[in-house]
């Protein structure tokens, strides 16, 4: 924490080496947020980069009493929501379909890696079917492990609004899963006959 404040102060003074260290420290959190929000690695890289550059240019406005990661994720989530609003067409590169996964477990057997990738794809597909505002709150809860208070700080809303939004987001995800299961249930007999 103390080191982080020193790095922030040095970055404010124009030390780009300190800025690079901050990027290294938070790149995983910011990139993951952008990937889950935007759904492909090319756009995620671009958005994560833009998040850090905006943070650099606005660092003088950062209030040290706030958690730095919350401030950074706030910039990232607002940027991604704006980007999704501007988005008209989605181009998906074939390479984007298989992002590099960072597993919390040490199991790197091929079948485990395959199942993890399958799970990540399925979750990402479902996230793509809920609104960006719901997506943000889910990402902050499940991948950033943010508390309700932190989510409120990041999104600029009250804790009760966080509770309500998270509830609606989970319900929306459950609806998407039920719809997908129902669609698979209808498709399966036709596939079997075919």
């Amino acid at each position: 924490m103390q080191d982080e404040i020193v790095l922030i102060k040095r970055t404010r003074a124009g030390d780009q080496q300190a800025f690079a260290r901050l990027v290294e420290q938070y790149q995983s959190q910011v990139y993951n947020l952008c990937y889950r929000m935007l759904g492909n690695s090319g756009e995620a890289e671009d958005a994560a980069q833009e998040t850090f550059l905006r943070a650099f240019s606005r660092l003088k406005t950062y209030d040290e009493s706030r958690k730095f990661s919350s401030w950074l994720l706030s910039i990232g989530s607002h940027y991604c929501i704006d980007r999704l609003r501007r988005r008209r067409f989605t181009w998906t590169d074939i390479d984007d379909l298989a992002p590099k996964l960072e597993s919390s477990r040490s199991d790197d057997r091929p079948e485990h890696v395959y199942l993890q990738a399958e799970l990540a794809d399925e979750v990402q597909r479902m996230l793509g079917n809920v609104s960006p505002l719901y997506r943000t709150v889910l990402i902050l809860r499940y991948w950033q492990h943010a508390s309700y208070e932190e989510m409120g700080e990041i999104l600029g809303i009250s804790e009760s609004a966080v509770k309500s939004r998270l509830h609606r987001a989970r319900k929306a995800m459950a609806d998407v899963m039920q719809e997908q299961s129902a669609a698979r249930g209808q498709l399966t007999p036709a596939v079997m006959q075919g």
Partner: protein
Amino acid sequence: MMKTCRESEELMSLALDGLLSGDERRTLDQHLATCESCAAVWDAMSEVSEMMWASPIVAPPAGFARSVVSELEARQQKERLRRQGIATIVSLVALLATVGLLASVWMGLWLGDAVGFRLAVASFFDQISDAVSLVARGVRVPLGLLDPTQVRIGVVSLALLVSACTVLWASVLVRVDRNARRAMGVRLDLETISIPR
């Protein structure tokens, strides 16, 4: 007390985060035991929640931090070039304004009478104003009516006016640019850049 379906749904999300009191949890469980549709929603919400907890973090590409710093350097370089461009324009405008000023002074000396010079300028603008109002009323104005000396005076005066406006505009632009850079906190000492490995 038995909860309604809507109230129970609100409790489900808190239950998934382990934020319900014992009483609230019992109330929710009682409702789920008697309401088939809420039980289905609860099962789906629990399942999707488990899936999200289990879904791994996606790692950034190798060399990401380096690419961010490189992009910062490129943008600062671009900003520096833009500022150099503005400085060049301001210098040219200043030169033009000086030439215009000298030409005006020379024109005044050439006429030999400062009062006559001012009267001639005023007369020129009166003529222009009359011509504009005539044109606006659809009357054709022969250009030959304008006195050549007054035309020269008018052109130099206009050049001076335009130069003064441009200098003013350029100074505003430079001030706005400086304020914007202050707000951005961008420093241009690119020589100090180094990227940790």
